[in-house]
């Protein structure tokens, strides 16, 4: 498996699209046109870094803060917005809403907004990769499971990693340690500064990475995925990052320490990458303007699409309950 390097300018554009998507949604919410949602603002780097390191056959599980993962995988922002707005053309026909969007065609399976649900399901998806990767049943691929630092305090974290270790399941666990768990700071819920130590105790190898640097994340994820494909064993990647907005919309972050917020605002992953690329002469003001224009156009088209999509008919209330 050779891993193509991540083009930093493309990564920047993808991150800017994610940010613009979330800002569009915040705006729609503010105008009463979308339900409350948990945004990924500030966490664009693990999304783009990890997802770029996957191949088309790999499967993804994610959680309530999933827009970055979906968009990094190439999801259509129009269908995503439509889903959040409960429209018929949403990925789930409007039945999911913002919190558990899955997109089978993209290999985004089983998004859960039960915190811990993604961890409980991931082992099964890993198991099916292993079982179906046999003569006559070829289904290659590994599993990437995104979850938060809060999810790591649910017992399912231990159960999932332990089973993956014992059964040797090809799972890349990606913890986006964004320092917050809804309205509670991580320091209030665990003594250690992160969760990698627990993985080690369960026999799962791990690495901690700067979760605001998409290139570092990509490298770490690529190395981890390479190991998973070679050994079949799970790996935990802990990306240290920050939730720059509140837990969900609206949330004034009144409970957040101002100094902490300022510290992390200075590390905004998009501003940092952009500044670095400009510093290194790899990005001109024109190129930035071009990206911004493309992103804006994409989001305008997406909004128009979602707006135009009808609500599902009332008969949809009871369809899709049973297969």
């Amino acid at each position, binding site marked *: 498996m050779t891993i193509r390097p991540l083009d930093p300018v493309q990564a920047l554009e993808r991150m800017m699209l994610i940010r613009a998507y979330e800002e569009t949604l915040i705006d729609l919410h503010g105008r009463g046109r979308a339900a409350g949602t948990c945004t990924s603002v500030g966490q664009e780097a693990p999304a783009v870094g990890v997802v770029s390191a996957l191949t088309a056959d790999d499967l993804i599980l994610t959680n309530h803060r999933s827009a970055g993962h979906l968009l990094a995988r190439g999801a259509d922002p129009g269908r995503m917005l439509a889903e959040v707005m409960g429209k018929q053309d949403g990925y789930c026909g409007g039945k999911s809403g913002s919190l558990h969007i899955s997109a089978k065609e993209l290999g985004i399976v089983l998004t859960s907004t039960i915190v811990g649900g993604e961890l409980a399901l991931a082992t099964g998806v890993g198991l099916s990769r292993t079982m179906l990767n046999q003569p006559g049943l070829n289904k290659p691929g590994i599993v990437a499971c995104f979850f938060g630092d*809060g999810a790591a305090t649910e017992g399912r974290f231990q159960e999932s990693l332990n089973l993956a270790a014992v059964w040797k399941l090809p799972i890349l666990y990606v913890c986006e340690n964004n320092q917050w768990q*809804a309205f*509670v700071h991580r320091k209030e819920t665990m003594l250690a500064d992160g969760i990698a130590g627990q993985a080690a105790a369960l026999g799962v190898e791990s690495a901690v990475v700067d979760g605001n640097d998409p290139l570092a994340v990509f490298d770490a994820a690529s190395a981890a995925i390479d190991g998973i494909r070679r050994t079949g064993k799970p790996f935990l990647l802990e990306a240290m990052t920050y939730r720059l907005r509140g837990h969900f919309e609206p949330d004034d972050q009144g409970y957040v320490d101002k100094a902490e917020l300022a510290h992390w605002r200075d590390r905004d992953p998009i501003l940092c990458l952009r500044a670095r690329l400009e510093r290194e002469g790899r990005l001109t003001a024109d190129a930035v303007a071009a990206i911004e224009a493309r992103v804006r156009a994409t989001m305008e088209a997406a909004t128009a699409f979602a707006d135009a999509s009808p609500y599902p008919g009332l008969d949809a*209330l009871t369809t899709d309950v049973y297969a």
Partner: protein
Amino acid sequence: MTTMTVNDAISAALAEEMRNDPTVMIFGEGVATKRHDLLAEFGPARVRNTPLAEGIIAGTAAGAAATGLRPVVDLLFAPFLCYAMDEIVNSAGKLRYISGGQFKFPMVVLAMTGAGWGVGAQHNHNVESWFVHSPGLKIVMPSTPADFKGLMKSAIRDDNPVLVFADIALGYSTGEVPEDAEAIPLGKAAVRREGRDVTLVSYAKTVGTCMAAADTLATAGIDAEVIDLRSLKPLDEDAILRSVAKTGRLVVVHEASRLCGVGAEIAALVAEKAFANLRAPVLRLTGPDAPPPASFPLEQAFVPQADAVVAAVRSLVAEPATA
């Protein structure tokens, strides 16, 4: 009398009971952040944030209750109770019996439920009937601020585990609450409107639906009695049977799904104990046997509406009397 919201009524009950009894405390995910008034008044030992782990939150409550405290835990949304079923059902509900009466479990579990937020089936699922079916528990699900306050007080004072479900759509609804509101006993229904022709039994937000339907019916000369159960366990069987003895007709209305719901229990109760009084089939208007959808129009359609109640009653009254 003061006018207050349901949310404020819950807070007021908590504060009063914490003032009255130093063994009352509250904890849960974000509880100390969100209830900063309680934190300020009672301090961080009695008002605590927890890790994100519903099972251990409920287990901690059960262990504490058995050994001298009166904990209140906020598990946020009803579907999250799935992570705490063992602690609620197998421990809090059964260990008194299993121990031959050696221990008691004075604890309260709070959770929101019901349509209104538009975020779908992993936040909205009316599962109160599970707990009615389970031994050793009490369940309340009030509809007015005064009842929330009075029943919360009783729940905290009760020596048994009490689950208090708050219909999310009622959180900001207002009502009169007596200044020196006393505890309202668990297990007593309230007759919200007297009537001769038909009994409407309901709880939580659909009590309002029944009241609206009763108004409409009154204009057609049909006189509906509306019973607000308030407590689902103990259930005020007398109030139901007394009313049906008078009206001979019964419609049960709730948002929870139909099969094995509280409406089934009430219909069965009446089919056994008020059979001779019944002049027409017993009808249930409930949510469908489907997960609650996120999409706003579908979410609203999930909940029984006043016109459906009116139509149901009209069908009964039109029915030729069979007794």
